[in-house]
């Protein structure tokens, strides 16, 4: 469904991505792990067109994404690291932001409240502003916005950063549930190993701008790659 081929990106002398190859199948949940500064966020930004890669290509349904970006974006949702809700809009308008262009206000609002309920937020939250929400509620509202238009592709950028373990587990369960329910393809970037185990079908380890290891989440613990073993052990606190 989505394929990344030979993607490279440098900032000055620093080579952040150095020929990344990745594939994402329909309905698959791929988790990209790696230490800080290994290019995980840059990879997502290049796919979204927020950064221009120096080399390589991104294909969506077998054709270059650049020529069909508007169509891709219409079928896309994203949960940002800090939710990135619009401060000037109440929660329901944030969730219904895309819907308001294609349906009447009352219908969009009803759908937004339905999506908020799906992520465990009460209808009263709809009228609040993002500044009035806790960190966990903001993540949930961001998740509701990401799934509001029933996307085919969803990106989750560090979905559990800044949350306590209980709330992080709840967000992981929500992500896994949404991916299973909707059949959407998902890419999650994280360095939280509990997220990896909860969310992933397949895992890719990014190191020095390259995919160092990739495989099924079950194969992660028995993989021979030393860096992956260190990463997994560090991530689980062993």
């Amino acid at each position, binding site marked *: 469904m989505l394929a990344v081929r030979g993607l490279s990106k440098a900032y000055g002398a620093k080579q952040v991505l150095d020929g990344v190859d990745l594939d994402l199948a329909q309905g698959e949940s791929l988790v990209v792990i790696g230490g800080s500064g290994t290019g995980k966020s840059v990879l997502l*930004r290049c796919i*979204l*067109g*927020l950064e221009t890669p120096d080399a390589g290509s991104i294909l969506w349904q077998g054709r270059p994404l650049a020529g069909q970006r*508007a169509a891709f*974006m*219409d079928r*896309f*949702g*994203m949960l*940002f*690291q*800090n939710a*990135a*809700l*619009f*401060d*000037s809009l109440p929660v329901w308008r944030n969730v219904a*932001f*895309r819907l308001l262009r294609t349906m009447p206000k009352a219908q969009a609002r009803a759908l937004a409240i339905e999506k908020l309920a799906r992520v465990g937020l009460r209808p009263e939250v709809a009228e609040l502003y993002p500044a009035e929400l806790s960190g966990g509620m903001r993540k949930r509202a961001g998740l509701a*916005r990401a799934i509001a238009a029933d996307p085919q592709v969803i990106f989750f950028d560090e979905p559990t950063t800044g949350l306590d373990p209980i709330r992080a587990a709840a967000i992981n369960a929500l992500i896994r549930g949404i991916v299973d329910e909707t059949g959407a393809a998902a890419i999650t970037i994280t360095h939280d190993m509990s997220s990896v185990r909860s969310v992933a079908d397949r895992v890719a380890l990014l190191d020095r701008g390259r995919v160092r290891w990739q495989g099924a989440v079950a194969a992660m613990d028995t993989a021979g790659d030393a860096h992956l073993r260190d990463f997994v052990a560090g991530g689980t606190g062993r």
Partner: protein
Amino acid sequence: MNPVRLTGRAAIGLTRTTGRVAIFAARGLGRVWQHPAELARQVMQIGWLSLPVVGLTALFTGAALALQIHSGGQRFQAGDVVPAIVAIGMVRELGPVLGGLMVAARVASAIAAELGTMRVTEQIDALVTLSTDPMGWLVSPRLWAALLCVPVLVGVGDVIGIMGGWLIGVNALGFNSAIYLSNSWAYLESWDVVSGLLKGAVFGLIVALSGCWCGMTAAGGAAGVGRATTNAVVAASVGILAANFALTGLFF
């Protein structure tokens, strides 16, 4: 480093930035009427809510100008020209410039802080992922609102400034009310008013452009937003004064 090389590098940097800002402005202005509700919200924010500060500035400026002209004019028996000088001074120069500077202080900083915060908290990236062009949603309504509202603010400020002069003239300087008002209009030409309003439109664009550019290019967290806000106010203020000089030379 070689001073010639330094100068050349600075000149290239300035030219490059000027070109980028010009393209940014053209892209912003080109996306007119994409989001009318957002434009209406910005008209309220930039126009309506700036009215008190612009009005008070004009009132005190007109009153002070009347006192100054009366005091200075008496040295060569020209105290009677207070109404005409206040009117011409307000509509041609002080109304647009001081009004523009007050809007710069209030609006350029607010735009830069808001857009800068949106930039560093990924809200602008979120707009892109929601199939919304940030230039059309954020920049265009602010540019057009300032372009349309500041001339109106200048016009209102002109009237309030002249009234400030009239208040002082009648209550403190011994002018007859009807004669003061009659003399105010007698020497005023339509081009005086129109040129001031045109200045207001240019100043409005400078204010919003400074705020939008500095906000949209902000980077580096809270400190970056702080720098963007400061730069926006400085750029808008200097831009207004430089544009005022150029337009005054062009118009008169």
